[in-house]
């Protein structure tokens, strides 16, 4: 019997190594897998490369992981926020590496990794600082930049419902990076609000099919 539901955070994050690339879902607070981030701080892996749209808010979640000095490098599109003081301090002191990526390139590079694409050309960023040193090509009178996929060792995402096979539904704009990060990582761990019996999720409503999810942990009202 397939059962991807794990009962402890230790089991959820089993195998995260120093130096791993960990994708973390969420756009601001929506879809941020807070319990998994707290567990990652507890787990203790260091020198992590983190992929997230932002660079943490306040003192909790991703900001707390940064503050604990576990992150060597951050790949994101929008680090600067009113309450991103933890990141701001690390960056200004040169204690963290930043790869700033236009948000559409970030999403598409993640998607490309999940879809087996070797690299792709996009017009976004052409002629800007963020395309410096990258291969370019003119195709049908338009200039493009070559962008590489971003693979993850782990993806930590937040979803609404799961079953024991790992089928996932999402809620509203909390979907954001979840489905594509799930495709791009070797091991995807989904923090979900509820686990329901197999067959209970309408197949038409499954957004991330079971194949992309390795572990499910229930956190929240149903737990």
């Amino acid at each position, binding site marked *: 019997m397939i059962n991807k539901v794990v009962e402890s955070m230790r089991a959820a994050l089993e195998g995260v190594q120093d130096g791993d690339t960990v994708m973390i879902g969420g756009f601001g607070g929506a879809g941020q897998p807070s319990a998994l981030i707290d567990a990652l701080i507890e787990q203790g892996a260091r020198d992590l490369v983190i992929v997230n749209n932002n660079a943490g808010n306040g003192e909790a979640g991703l900001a707390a992981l940064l503050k604990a000095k576990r992150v060597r490098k951050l790949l994101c599109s929008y680090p600067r926020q009113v309450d991103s003081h933890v990141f701001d301090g690390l960056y200004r002191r040169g204690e963290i590496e930043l790869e700033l990526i236009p*948000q559409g*390139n970030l*999403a*598409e590079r993640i998607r490309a990794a999940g879809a087996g694409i070797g690299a792709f050309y996009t017009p976004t960023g052409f002629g800007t600082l963020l395309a410096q040193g990258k291969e370019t090509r003119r195709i049908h009178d338009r200039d493009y930049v070559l962008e590489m996929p971003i693979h993850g060792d782990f993806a930590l995402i937040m979803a609404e419902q799961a079953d024991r096979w790992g089928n996932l539904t999402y809620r509203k704009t909390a979907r954001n990076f979840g489905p594509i990060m799930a495709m791009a990582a070797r091991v995807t761990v989904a923090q979900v609000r509820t686990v329901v019996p197999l067959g209970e999720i309408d197949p038409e409503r499954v957004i991330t099919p079971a194949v992309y999810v390795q572990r499910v942990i229930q956190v929240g009202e149903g737990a």
Partner: protein
Amino acid sequence: MKPIGWTRDAMAARIARDIPEGAVVNLGIGMPTLVANHLPVDREVLLHSENGVLGMGPAPADGDEDWDLINAGKQPVTLRNGGSFFHHADSFALMRGGHLDLCVLGAFQVSAQGDLANWHTGAPESIPAVGGAMDLATGAKRTVVMMEHLTKNGESKLVPQCTYPLTGIACVRRIYTDLAVIEINKEGPATVIEQVAGLTFKELQRLTAIELTRGLH
């Protein structure tokens, strides 16, 4: 001396006038979000937000916030009937694949060629953040800018060449400022479509660091 220009709400209302029913529109973070307040409720415009929502409605009433339903500025919003949700790669494919009729962006500078600078001042102490600005500028069918005509120091934000790092090259078609509505042309000077009352064309030209020509109105 700085002339008295249109208010931000007047600028937003002017932009809203140019948005037809059925348009798929992305309003950038900051000043452009004001445009939504000036779209008549009976005009069906599909507002898109980069974080995976099409058919976005106004802010919820106090107490009705749902933090799983936010906009690009991470503020709570609502969904209109007919609205939909999708993941980030689909959302940016919508922006990058030419499916967005219009995007309205703020700007630090716009050049005579329509180059846009709006993501980074380039100052060494500043923390760069780009978000979806480059995708919008380059991907939308039509990119327009909403900005003050002059900087706080009274310098023209319309410039022969951008001195701040670029967001996109030759991507801006029209600029709505507090003093004028200006169309960028492929060749030749930019066309003034409208200007604020009480300001002569000559005065407007004096305040603007790119060459202007009078449009028909």
